[in-house]
């Protein structure tokens, strides 16, 4: 049942041009230059430090690295990050590139 549910959603977005972030519960990330990253629809904070922010997403993690990170705003499903952003990486669940930092 669930599988059928999940299969129909990508088809819905394709054929009806519905916004994919709403239907697929995917994170929506808005980046403004190197200054801001605005992440919506995340599933919680995994780790945060001065240079790295890791967020849980629907499948896997989102990792943002850079320097002088400040979380300007924290809401249940939104985060506004400020600082100097270097890169944004998607890490699939248990996939390659997944590394645990301690």
């Amino acid at each position, binding site marked *: 049942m669930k599988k059928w549910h999940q299969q129909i959603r990508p088809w819905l977005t394709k054929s009806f041009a519905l916004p994919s972030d709403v239907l697929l519960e995917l994170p929506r990330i808005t980046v403004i230059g190197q200054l801001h990253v605005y992440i919506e629809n995340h599933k919680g904070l995994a780790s*945060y430090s001065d240079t790295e922010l890791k967020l849980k997403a629907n499948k896997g993690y989102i990792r943002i690295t850079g320097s002088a990170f400040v979380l*300007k705003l924290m809401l249940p499903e939104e985060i506004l990050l400020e600082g100097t952003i270097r890169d944004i990486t998607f890490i699939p669940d248990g996939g390659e590139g997944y590394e645990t930092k301690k």
Partner: protein
Amino acid sequence: MKQKNKPNAAGAVTIVVTGDRPELFFQHCTSHGIRIWDVMKTSNQACQGTISLKDTKYIKGLRRGMHYKIKFIDRKGFPFIIRRYLRKKELLFAFILSCLFLFILSNIVWDVKITGVPKDIEEKIGKQLKEYGIQPGSWIFSLNSPKQIQQQLLSDVPELLWVGIDQKGTTFQLEGVEKIVVKEEAEPKPRNLIAAKKGIIKKMYVSQGVPKVEVHDYVEKGDLLVSGKMVDEEESEENEKKKIKYVAADGDITALTWYEVKVSVPLKTSSEQLTGNQEKKYHLGFGDFNIPVWGFGSPDFKNIQQEKQEAKLRFLKWDLPVKIIETKLHEKTYTSVKRTKQEAIEAGITQAKEQLKLELGEASILSEKVLHETIENGKVKLNLYMSVEENIIATQPLRQGD
């Protein structure tokens, strides 16, 4: 991107969380619906963030069962500013005192301006106003209304023809108009004296002019009494030409006149009288709602005559919705009198006499006689005949050269 993360009005608190992986505590908070902003990792073990004041009580609950330590390090926003000032007792005291001062001063008369009249009358008015209590330094709400003051002033300062009183904030502006007393002309123009009404002449005193009537003569209205046309008779016999001199006739001619007066007197009368006992009450009024301030309980008068006076309180130039209401309670008594017919007639006669005197001014009533009397609907109706002695002269200007 909505950025409404500075609710300064509600107050914000900066907290420092220490412990292992402190950012997870903030994550815990956000999942409970608490908004956090300006999160910064200060060290590996410490993380700092700002939350709104109203969320602090939830924070304490969320911390329970976790191994984090929370420290409050900064307070921002309006509630804290107020709290800081409230803690300074002197400042608060001074603020209240100054408000009170301002309030008191705006309810005091500061200036009385009198315009439109010469200096001497101005002084007189000023003196009179002081007597009423209107002078710089007196309470505005203890004064009578401008209308009442106006009437009082007009009756107490006879030189005033009209006075307008305008209360502008804490100043009273008076504008007066002086009565110009017109002096009678020193030498009246030539005139005759004629009878103003019919009567029998009783007394005559002619200071100037030629009397044309005598005592005991009956005159009709308009008859010539004293002529202002004087003819020198001795000279006129010798010379053919008559020398005629016109003078202003003057004199006093008292005549007996009579009137018929109709009065009706009720057999039963009731009247109200104030006994002089009174009590004062003060209320503070907010709209229709009154709070008694002074004078509680009701007096043990049976019948009460109430007199209310309202005075509005002011603050700077505004009228406050608060007013002081002074209520005077006077005791009054009802007296009802039943009269016999004879008494009613007597009362009727005195009433008629007074009525007539009021009409005639200076006159003496010699005698009265009841012509007719009837009793109707509990009233005695009287027809009275009155004989009166009064001055009956009227003037009539003489045309010269006729």
